[in-house]
């Protein structure tokens, strides 16, 4: 395992390389010629009907109950990663501590379930 800085530089180089690959594919496509502008060609395709209405609107995402619970669980997972690494070393204490934490969250999940958060609104 080499020094972390070198690794992150390597990742940055990988990102740059991927961007370069994408750019080169775009360049090749451009070399073949640009798209010819024709009427109606650029209207988003809706099954052979022309629909020029904009659709950027307040979309009613009906899973917001799930999303809120997800936030709570995601915070929990942030704690669980380091816990997992030292778990075996710490032994039973670690299991019990995290068990309590998970149990509390699980109770929260059950509560949300009973209150109807876990359904399509």
């Amino acid at each position: 395992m080499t020094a972390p800085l070198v690794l992150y530089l390597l990742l940055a180089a990988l990102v740059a390389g991927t961007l370069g690959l994408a750019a080169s594919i775009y360049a090749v496509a451009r070399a073949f010629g640009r798209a010819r502008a024709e009427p109606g060609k650029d209207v988003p395709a809706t099954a052979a009907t022309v629909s020029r209405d904009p659709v950027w609107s307040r979309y009613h995402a009906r899973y917001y109950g799930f999303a809120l619970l997800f936030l709570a669980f995601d915070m929990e997972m942030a704690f669980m990663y380091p816990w997992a690494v030292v778990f075996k070393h710490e032994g039973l204490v670690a299991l019990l501590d995290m068990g309590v934490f998970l149990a509390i969250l699980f109770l929260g999940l059950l509560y949300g379930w009973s209150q109807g958060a876990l359904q399509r609104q």
Partner: protein
Amino acid sequence: MSVLAPILALLLLAWCVAVLDAWMTTGRFRPLAPLTATLALVAGESLVPRKPDRLFFETAPILLLLAAVLAAAALPIAPHLVITDLATSALFVNAALAYVLVALLMAGWGPDGAYAMIGGWRFLGQTIAYSMLIVMPITAVAMRAQSLLTTDIVRSQAGLWNVLYQPLGFALFFVAAMAVSFLPPFDLPTASGELAGGVEAEYTGARRAIFRLGRTILIVSLATATTVFYLGGWLGPWLPPWLWSALKTLAVAAAMLAAGHAVPRLREAHLLAWAWKAGIPLAMLNIFLVGVLLLVIP
């Protein structure tokens, strides 16, 4: 040199998965299919919808590709064939996969088209369902390896592969991996019968080539992740380690591509309900079981 080899291996695996995918959907085995398809796409027109959110529209395919490549970067093919062996690789993989959501949301919002937008928002719902089911099994795997290094995770399976040690975690991770890469039956964002192509629909030409490349590499990354976390990575007798990795990855990818054909597309409401009411309790049970096993077995 040891950095180029995994990159080439990744591309080669992506090629194989693309051929496999084409074979499964059309029944024709064409080894040159990825090349001809890409050439055809690049040589065709690349259309841009009118009045798009240009930033989002352009960024989405590239971001999808980046997310997939970064996820693959932390996964090893052989003991010293990994692009970046980060100390927090297991977490890094998850972080990279999170950008798939961002990419698809951008792809949905960008073109200002109805089908794409609905597809994008539906994928957000799908992600909320499956994020936890990716993270929790990884935690359980890290518990056994006592480290987040993917090479350590593979080495910890020298005695028994995780698929047998934590089968529940494997099942959940496999299903969640299919959902992240929006393979059928989780293909809500790009369904043909429901959204006429959805998120992918407004991409043509070179951008579509990048989108498809990104998706294929995403499938490869997830298959590699499954192999590394649950199927013992490069471990195995007789054959060289990289060959074991490649075979296992291809097998998992084939299973992912085939599994969806038997089941109809799941409605978003069902996905979410099953993931949160059944999936997460099971994942927590998995962590608890693994914890107990680790303490009991020396």
